[in-house]
């Protein structure tokens, strides 16, 4: 293996190593106690404890479950609704104001209502995650349907496509290259929101781990939960990026 081949792996590792080094030095220079500002080593020890007693896995799975449920719900409702509204202009005029009104309201503002309506447990968290990824997906789907080349609809009419075929064989494939970045961004947002959602009303998840560790003054655990969030975030992103390999999407990049 020569340098050119290793480069894409070596350079990211280098940046992580640099941050850890700076972290270690800052910790040393600060003169604070490790309880207030744990160093890399303290965090590593804490991480090992969390892995060994299984709590890291338990909390990660709980968070992933909520993200998956809320995000899939948003994809399952937001994309078809976006296609319908993008196509049906009356519906678009009818709802656009409402969408733009609801969109800037932070999902976190819904916390009191969500708890009141859905009680305690997974449901309010899933609801908040759904809200956070629903609007970006909906808006970008409507936008991409609006910007499909008119020629494609004329070709569809020319070859006697039914409305159903127009959706499945023209609109859906035509917006796919635009939708993939939106899917990627909204998954990121969902993962951001889960932590906040878990600080209320639940007794599991990485957000809860952070809150619980803060109450126990275990800053090393707080950092470990943050690290776990980052690592899982990278993994989720990698999974979504794989969708770009679909062959019938490649035209969108030219």
């Amino acid at each position, binding site marked *: 293996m020569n340098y050119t081949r290793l480069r894409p792996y070596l350079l990211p590792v280098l940046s992580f190593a640099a941050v850890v080094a700076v972290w270690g030095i800052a910790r040393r220079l600060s003169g604070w106690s490790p309880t207030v500002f744990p160093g890399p080593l303290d965090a590593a020890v804490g991480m090992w404890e969390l892995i060994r007693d299984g709590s890291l896995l338990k909390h990660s799975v709980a968070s992933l479950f909520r993200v998956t449920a809320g995000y899939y719900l948003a994809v399952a409702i937001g994309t078809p609704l976006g296609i319908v509204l993008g196509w049906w*202009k009356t519906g678009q005029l009818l709802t656009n104001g409402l969408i733009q009104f609801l969109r800037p309201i932070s999902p976190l503002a819904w916390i009191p209502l969500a708890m009141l309506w859905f009680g305690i447990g997974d449901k309010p968290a899933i609801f908040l995650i759904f809200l956070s990824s629903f609007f970006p997906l909906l808006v970008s789907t409507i936008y991409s349907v609006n910007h499909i080349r*008119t*020629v*494609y*609809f*004329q*070709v569809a*009419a*020319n*070859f*006697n496509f039914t409305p159903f075929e127009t959706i499945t*064989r*023209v609109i859906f*494939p*035509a917006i*796919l290259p635009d939708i993939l970045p939106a899917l990627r961004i909204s998954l990121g947002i969902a993962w951001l929101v889960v932590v906040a959602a878990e600080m209320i009303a639940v007794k599991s998840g990485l957000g809860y781990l952070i809150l619980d560790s803060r109450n126990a003054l275990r800053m090393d655990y707080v950092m470990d939960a943050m690290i776990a969030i980052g690592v899982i975030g990278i993994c989720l992103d990698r999974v979504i990026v794989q969708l770009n390999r679909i*062959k*019938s*999407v*490649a*035209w*969108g990049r*030219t």
Partner: protein
Amino acid sequence: MGHILVKDVRKEYVERRGARRRMNSDPDLRSGNHLPVLDGIDLEFANGELVCILGPSGCGKTTLARVIAGFDRPTSGTVLIDGEKVKGPSSEHIFVFQHSGLFPWMTVWENVRLGARHMKEKEEMAAKVQEHLDVVNLTGYEHLYPHQLSGGMQRRAELARALVADPEVLFMDEPFAGLDFLTRLKMREEIINMHELIQKTIVFITHDIDEALVMGDRVVVFTERPAKVRLDLKLEFPHPRDFHSYDELERLRRDVYTELGVHYAL
């Protein structure tokens, strides 16, 4: 079949700046500036004719073709194909678009297969698709996506897709736009040969005078917008045509150039 009768067709667009354009939408005639595009067009094309429509750019050539093909409704007047009033787009009159109308998410094969959608038998359909791909010289490129093909190959694939559908009329709206000079010449030849083979009515829109005179059985020249028919010529010269061998053709060419305001055609 493929007899086209255009009777006193007028088309006005209403200028609505920033308004969304929709398919088959009738302009709201109560508001906005009226922009007459077609001003009483009367034309009759015989079955199997290759008609070239010439005119300055923006004069309404495309609009007329869209009206005949059923994509736009005329403001007044009627269009009859084989005696029947055109009601909307259909696979009996296929349009080949100025900029590629191939679906970029489908392979060449899948695109061409759209034209054979009406066939029930799978094998018959596959044979038909392959046959037409062979005709346009795309054998071996079936499984590539349009963006992997050159401009000329894309046009040929679109042509194959239109031909598979076996339409009564084929519309081609500046199908050679954006092709290099040599490819353009080759495509002209291919269209002429194909037309002699299938004997379908083709409405071919171009702004290239030589192209129209070399290809058409019939050349219709439009005026500036609002378009009227300025010249309607029948050309009975055999193919291949060349301006040096037919003095009459050379004379016509000069006339058309003069009509369109160019006095020293080279």
